């Protein structure tokens, strides 16, 4: 398995480097590969430096991290809930983040506060869902899922309310935030660190997750301490999602589709799926973001539109090809 993992990760790392390179080259103003290289090694003219280092690099790195975070969170949620339809947002984490972000936008607060409020909202929602799902008895995936879906609906109502009372000038920013917007992501560093740490923490849990995917009882019979494992997985997925949402708003689709694509191609060993999802999610979102800011430039498309347009046909093809 180690050999297979190494091969898969090597291929994905090369693809990731290529995707990042393409993203740095393409934009409203074309910059040749040679110029990108010059700028990255510290040279080049000021305009190219500004374009590549100030505008494209932070955005590209943010897109990659967001995609990776969401794909890993989605893979974890699907195993946790034993439900292939689960995505990182299914338990209302994004709704809580959105309410936090929109409220701070409504109050006209600074960008950093908006991010902080989004993160706080995500964590609040996480704790709320977990506390409520626990209730007076034990929680099961179905109970957790139902609680999450209902809490998400509550957040949805609050979001609609905020949009309804928000002044017109704030609306476009809010809508772009809700659709996922990478254009404001300037400091992707923390997101990369979170992604790296969580993948490293989750990898040793991979085999236990493989067992958990077969059901809680089966897992317990095979020596897995199910409850602590589920807590850890839920917490990890929540941190991943909260980080992604804080960085880029609610980018849809990546968290649902990337784990499934990988399962169709690579099988369902979480020890392979989790690191592969970090890379493949990053690649998909980097390419999608590149397209979203170039296809109808100078206008920009929400990146979620492109992830869906890219992901749906690929996914359907893989599904059709599989047995």
């Amino acid at each position, binding site marked *: 398995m180690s050999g297979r993992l190494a091969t898969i990760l090597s291929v994905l790392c090369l693809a990731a480097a290529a995707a990042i390179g393409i993203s740095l080259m393409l934009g409203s103003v074309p910059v040749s590969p040679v110029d990108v290289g010059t700028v990255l090694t510290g040279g080049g003219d000021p305009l190219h430096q500004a*374009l590549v*280092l*100030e505008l494209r690099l932070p955005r590209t790195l943010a897109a990659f991290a967001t995609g990776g975070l969401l794909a890993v969170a989605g893979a974890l949620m699907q195993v946790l809930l034993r439900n292939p339809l689960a995505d990182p947002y299914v338990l209302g984490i994004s709704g809580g983040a959105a309410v936090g972000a929109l409220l701070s936008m409504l109050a006209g607060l600074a960008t950093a506060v908006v991010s902080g409020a989004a993160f706080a909202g995500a964590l609040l929602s996480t704790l709320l869902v977990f506390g409520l799902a626990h209730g007076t008895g034990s929680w099961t995936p179905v109970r957790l899922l139902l609680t999450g879906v209902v809490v998400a609906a509550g957040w949805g109502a609050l979001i609609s309310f905020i949009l309804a009372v928000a002044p017109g*000038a704030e609306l476009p920013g809010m809508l772009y935030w809700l659709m996922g917007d990478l*254009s404001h992501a300037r400091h992707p560093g923390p997101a990369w660190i979170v992604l790296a740490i969580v993948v490293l923490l989750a990898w040793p849990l991979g085999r236990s997750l493989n067992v958990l995917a077969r059901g809680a009882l089966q897992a317990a019979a095979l020596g897995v301490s199910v409850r602590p494992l589920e807590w850890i997985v839920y917490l990890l997925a929540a941190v991943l999602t909260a980080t992604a949402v804080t960085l880029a708003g609610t980018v849809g689709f990546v968290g649902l589709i990337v784990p499934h694509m990988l399962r169709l191609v690579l099988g369902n060993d979480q020890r392979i799926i989790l690191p592969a999802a970090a890379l493949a999610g990053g690649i998909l979102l980097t390419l999608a973001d590149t397209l979203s*800011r170039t296809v109808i430039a*100078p206008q*920009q498309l929400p990146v979620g539109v492109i992830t869906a347009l890219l992901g749906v046909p690929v996914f359907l093809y893989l599904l059709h090809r599989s047995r």
Partner: protein
Amino acid sequence: MSLVRFVSTRPGPWLWLLSLLAGSAVLAGGGAAVQAEIRVTDDSHREVRLAEPAHRIVSLSPHLTELLFEVGAGDRIVGTVSFSDHPEAARQIPRVGNAGQLDLERILALQPDLVVAWRSGNPARQVARLEALGLTVYYNEPRRLSDLADTLERLAVLTGSSETGAAQAAQLRERSRKLATRYAHRPAVPLFYQIWDDPLMTVNDQHLIGELIALCGGKNLFGELPALVPRLSREAVLAADPEVIVGGGSGEDNRAWVDGWRRWSGLTAVRRDNLFFIPPSLIQRQTPRILDGAEMLCEYLDEARARRPETAP
């Protein structure tokens, strides 16, 4: 990394050199080099400084593009946003996105020495980003007719055509003063101003259109609402029973929104046929053309006054 080399936001080393060369003037008269610098306060109450009149301007709103043309600086606009369609020459200017979503790369590549931004219409974070990248930004936020005149003057200063700007501003003030003397004190006409249909939206008294309504002697029935652009239910309009309904449309010649009120035959405005249409580009854009729209509005309100029954108090 900064763009100081080609965009100057503050006196760079070379300006010091200039000061040294003009050293005697500095010592004698308090600063020739300082005189060469252009200083203007924008609507965010910040001082915008240029070493020389702007030659490469990026305008981030259709109304700002129009205002720049008014003060004779239209040919210096190197980039603007979608819907910049007036005057005709504005259509030829390269686009850098739309007001709500800017293409920072294009703006940067144009290497402008001045960016004029619309504070409530552009994404604050994107404009802040442009500033962080070293560009000089002038923030505009016209709320009153007097702001419009001020803006004309300031844009003229920034582009080195103060005389044209002063004349334009004076003309604008004069026109609005004339309208006010003629109409503002005529019998008040209770009206509802519709700027969007679904959802139904109006303006309050703080809005520029609100000021025009007052100028023409109208009384905005929803002027006291706190939001600048309140959203309403149709029922609220029916309950208020305006004497006049004025509205724009989804196009320059589309009366559908105002005519839609005819199904409520009990409304005073419908019974007296006081449903008036004003092309949105005339009144919903903060440029001197807004006074053309204001003249139309004033005449409509006069028509409505003429249609009042003889017995009315």
